[in-house]
C-alpha cells in the first residue's frame, strides 16, 4: 500500500489580495461567460473558484441584440450579445440568494449609459448580502451610446470610477477597454478616480464578413473579439498597466490553460479571469486552479504571490 505524503504542499498557498479583498486563489470567471454561476453548478465545483464575476447588470433589463450574435473567427470568436441582462432589481431578487450561498466572493459587473445610471446601480447593490465587489464595465463595445465613450476617454473613465466609488460599500474593480491607443492613460485615470483594482482586457472590436451574401456576419455589424487570438495583446496591456499603476491588476484575455494564467501573473496580474474558454470546457476554471496549485507545489514556491510581476526583462 502506498501513502500519499500529505503535508502542507497538498494545500499550497494560492491566496491573493485584490486590494482589501483576499481571495482563495487567483482564478475568477469573466463576466458574460459564466452566466449567474448556477448554469455551471453540475459541471464543476463552484467552491474552487477564487471569485465569480456575474453577467453584466444594467439599471433596467436589456433584451440584447438581434441574431446572429456570435461568429467563430480564427482562434477566437466575435460576439455582439448586446448586454442582455435581467436588470439590477431582478438580479438582486432572483439571482443573488443563490450566489450568496456559494460562499465564494461574488463580484457584480455593472454597466450604464450615464454617470447617474452607474451611480444608481451601485446604490441598489449597497448592503446586498453576498456582494463582495463591483466590476465596472466601461468598455463594452456593443452598445452604441455610453459604453465606448467612457472606456476610451481617460477623464470620463475617471468620472465613472469616482461615481461608483462614492456610492459603493465594497471594493471597486474597473474593467478596461483595449480599444485605445494608450491604455496606461486610462489605467492611471481610473486609479486616480479611486479604483481599488483594474481588470483588463475586455474584447477587441472586430468584424466578420460573409463573402457569399456580402454582408457582415453579425447583425450588429461589429462585435467583440475574444479567445486565444487576443492573448498576446492582453498580456502586453496587462504588463504595461501593471507597470504604471500601483493598484492590483487582474488579467483577462484568451486564457485557456494553467500556463496562460501563469504568464499573466508573471506580467504583473494579481489574479486572472477565464472567459471564452468557459464555453468550450465548462470545467476549465477549476482545472486551472488545480494546475496553479500543482505548479506552486512542483516549483516549491512559498505561495503563488511570489511569482506575481516576476517577469525578467533583460535590457542588455
Amino acid at each position: 500500500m502506498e501513502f500519499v505524503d500529505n503535508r502542507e504542499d497538498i494545500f499550497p498557498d494560492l491566496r491573493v489580495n485584490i486590494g482589501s479583498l483576499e481571495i482563495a486563489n487567483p482564478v475568477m470567471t469573466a463576466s458574460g461567460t459564466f452566466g449567474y454561476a448556477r448554469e455551471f453548478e453540475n459541471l464543476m465545483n463552484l467552491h474552487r473558484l477564487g471569485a465569480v464575476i456575474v453577467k453584466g447588470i444594467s439599471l433596467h433589463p436589456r433584451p440584447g441584440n438581434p441574431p446572429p450574435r456570435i461568429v467563430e473567427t480564427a482562434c477566437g470568436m466575435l460576439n455582439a450579445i448586446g448586454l442582455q441582462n435581467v436588470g439590477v432589481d431582478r438580479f438582486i431578487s432572483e439571482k443573488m440568494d443563490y450566489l450568496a450561498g456559494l460562499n465564494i466572493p461574488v463580484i457584480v459587473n455593472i454597466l450604464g449609459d450615464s454617470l447617474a445610471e452607474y451611480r444608481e446601480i451601485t446604490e441598489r447593490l449597497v448592503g446586498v448580502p453576498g456582494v463582495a465587489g463591483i466590476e465596472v464595465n466601461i468598455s463594452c463595445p456593443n452598445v452604441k451610446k455610453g459604453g465606448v465613450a467612457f472606456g476610451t476617454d481617460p477623464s470620463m473613465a475617471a468620472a465613472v470610477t469616482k461615481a461608483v466609488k462614492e456610492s459603493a460599500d465594497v471594493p471597486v474593480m474597473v474593467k478596461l477597454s483595449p480599444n485605445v491607443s494608450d491604455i496606461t492613460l486610462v489605467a492611471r485615470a481610473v486609479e486616480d478616480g479611486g479604483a481599488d483594482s483594474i481588470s483588463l482586457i475586455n474584447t477587441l472590436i472586430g468584424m466578420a464578413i460573409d463573402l457569399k451574401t456580402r454582408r457582415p456576419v453579425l447583425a450588429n455589424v461589429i462585435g467583440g473579439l475574444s479567445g486565444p487570438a487576443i492573448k498576446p495583446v492582453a498580456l502586453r496591456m496587462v504588463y504595461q498597466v501593471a507597470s504604471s499603476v500601483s493598484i492590483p491588476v487582474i488579467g483577462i484575455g484568451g486564457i485557456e490553460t494553467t500556463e496562460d494564467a501563469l504568464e499573466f501573473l508573471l506580467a504583473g496580474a494579481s489574479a486572472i479571469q477565464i472567459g471564452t474558454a468557459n464555453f468550450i470546457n465548462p470545467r476549465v476554471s477549476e482545472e486551472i486552479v488545480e494546475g496553479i496549485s500543482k505548479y506552486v507545489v512542483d516549483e516549491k514556491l512559498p505561495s503563488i504571490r511570489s511569482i506575481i510581476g516576476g517577469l525578467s526583462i533583460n535590457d542588455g
Partner: protein
Amino acid sequence: MSQYQEKATVSRVEQLSAKNYRLTLDSPDISGAAKAGQFVMIRTGLAKDPLLRRPFSIHQTSANGQLQIYFKVVGRGTDMLARVKAGEIMSVFGPLGRGFRIKKNSPAIIIGGGLGIAPMLFLAKSICRLKTDCSNDHIILGGRERSEVEPLVNDFRQFGLRLGLATDDGSYGHQGYVTDLLKSLELHSEYTVYACGPEPMMARVYSICKSGSMQCQVSVESVMACGMGACLGCSRMTKKGTYTHVCLNGPVFNAEELIWNS
C-alpha cells in the same frame, strides 16, 4: 437534469453520401441521459482552431451506451469531424436543451427534411417505445435529392410506421416537398406534428398545422458558443417580442411560440 462532459471513443464513421456522415460514439453517460430532440456539443479537435464546439442533434442512442450524430460537411469543424477514425477520442458535452415533448395519446407525424432527418430517428424510436399503438403514425422524409434521403430510409423502416419519401428533383420518392405529402394525409386536429428541417420547410409545416389546428413542434438550428445558457449567442425572437435561447428553451419549440417568415 444531468449533463456530462464525456471523453467518447469513436466506434464507427460512416460516409452515407458525398458530404453526409454518421458518427457513432461510445458515450454511455450522455446516451443514457439523452432524450429525443436534445443535442450535444462536440469539440472537433483539441487545437485552438477551430475554437468552439459544434452543436449536433442526437441522431439516436443505443442501450449499449452509444450515441450517433448525422452531419454534413459544411465547414472546417465538420470537415475535421468527417476525417476522424474509429478509436479516436472526442470531447462530447451533453445532453443539452429541451427535446420533443411526446404526446402519448396523439397520433404522430414525424417530418424530417435534409439534415433535419437527424433527430427524427431518435424521436421515431422514442415514440414507438412510449406508445402502444403506432398504427396511425407517419414518418415523412425529404431532401433535395436521393442521396439526402435514401441512406437513412432503412433505419426508419424498422418501426413499421407509414413512411413517405420526397425529393425536390424526384430522384427518390415523390417529386416535390414533404409538405405535399403532409397535405395528402387525412389530417385532423388530433395529430401532433414533429418537424425538423430548413426554416422555409418548417414555416410551411407550421402553417399547415395552424390551419388544421394541429399541434406542431419544431427543432430549430442556431449558432451557439456554449450550448448551455452562458454565452446567450443563440437568441431567437418569439411572438411575445422577447428573445428566447435555442440552447436552453429549445432546440425544440412549439412552433406557435416563434416568428416565421413568409
